[in-house]
């Protein structure tokens, strides 16, 4: 089986499991929407919400995403299916990328629901910038998932389990948080996409670095 087919086999298996259990998507969406509601009540009405909406959107997405990532390898602990997969002659990089693909699909669903909700709550017209926002959201989510999937595997092997994930993940995510929040902020305040081209290039570079490095080190993380 080719590398790509191995990736798709793992990703489709994870998505079918999620479709049937709805464990992760429901908790991610519920959490994200609750945070959006809490922000909408907690904000000082005199603050211009569009000035801080970019940061709020990404804080919400990353924390909701961590809920889902925590279960990504957690579901492989039941009946030790992780060992079952690792006993097979599957490329470890393909296994990792399959997990990344499934996690990214789930996070993008959360993004698609959440970003318009923020637009509604904070009365921001997002349609004019939909193209630029889609690029930023896609790249930032990919970077988050690339790194988060690796740390989810590490956390699953640890006695601390899912509670270890944010401790490992958040410090390394700071550049992604910074550039995604900053470019989102600029876009929703009406700046053209050319103004955030630099941030988009940085996000793309982080995505590539995270994906390449994490694919290379994944085997050493999951092998006992």
């Amino acid at each position: 089986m080719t590398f790509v087919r191995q990736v798709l086999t793992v990703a489709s298996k994870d998505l079918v499991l999620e479709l049937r259990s709805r464990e992760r998507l429901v908790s991610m969406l519920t959490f994200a929407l609750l945070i959006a509601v809490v922000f909408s009540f907690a904000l000082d009405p005199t603050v211009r919400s569009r000035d801080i909406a970019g940061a709020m959107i990404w804080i919400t997405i990353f924390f909701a995403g961590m809920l889902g990532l925590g279960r990504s390898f957690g579901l492989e602990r039941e009946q030790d299916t992780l060992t079952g997969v690792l006993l097979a002659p599957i490329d470890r990089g393909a296994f990792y990328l399959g997990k990344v693909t499934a996690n990214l699909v789930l996070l993008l669903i959360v993004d698609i629901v959440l970003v318009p909700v923020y637009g509604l709550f904070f009365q921001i017209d997002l349609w004019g910038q939909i193209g630029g926002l889609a690029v930023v959201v896609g790249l930032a989510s990919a970077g988050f998932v690339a790194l988060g999937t690796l740390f989810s595997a590490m956390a699953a092997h640890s006695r601390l389990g899912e509670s270890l994930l944010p401790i490992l993940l958040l410090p390394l995510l700071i550049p992604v948080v910074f550039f995604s929040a900053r470019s989102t902020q600029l876009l929703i305040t009406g700046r053209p996409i050319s103004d955030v081209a630099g941030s988009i290039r940085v996000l793309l570079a982080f995505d590539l670095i995270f994906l390449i490095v994490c694919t290379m080190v994944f085997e050493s993380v999951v092998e006992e």
Partner: protein
Amino acid sequence: MWGAARLTEVAIEARGLEKWFGPFPAVRGLDFTVLSGQFITIFGPNGAGKSTLLRMLAGAVRPTGGEVVVVGEKIGAGEHAWRRRIGVLSHQTFLYGHLTAEENLHFYGKLYGVSQRGERVREMLERVGLWGRRSDRVNGFSRGMQQRLALARTLLHDPEVVLLDEPYTGLDPHAATMLRGVLEQLRDGERTVVMVTHNLSQGLELADRVVVQAAGRWISDEDRSEIEVGEFEKVYTDRVGGAI
């Protein structure tokens, strides 16, 4: 006896095999060979390191020292092609509860690159008596049914070396008879089988070589024909008692 002509090639070779968990030794300096087609049963008390040994032979756990060669390929070296030659039945079933029996086997069939997968999946499900339940999710199965499906998963890719860790766990008498039939077929089909168990009678039934492991070491390694079934329990207890 091991005198059959097929028992000439080495299927598994372990050299200086060791595994430590921190300061605690699980397996201590094992050197042995298992011939192709041999059915070897490893007995031993809890904590003897039997499951750890099996996991090292499967490539699921890295040895602290030493190496394992399976059908001429060193475990852990380079590519993972050697994994296609090994099938493992563990305490855990390695099955996804939210997938159906058929979907589980298709998933593993894809990972192992099983050709004519649809036919092979059907054959294996029929062999373990689960074809009629193929569309049911595994989390609705009894422990015995899950164990039977796990056996189908283990043998799906027709491995040359089969590693079984307490395979009779959770099986009712009917399912245990079915498993015995499958193991007989493996033995007659010239597959190399290493089985770990506590159950002396089931372990002795099909074995042609019997090992007792205690405190990470093999304290006896005998041809099955040299063992008197009636006396083995006492001999086993004496040996294990003396070793731990």
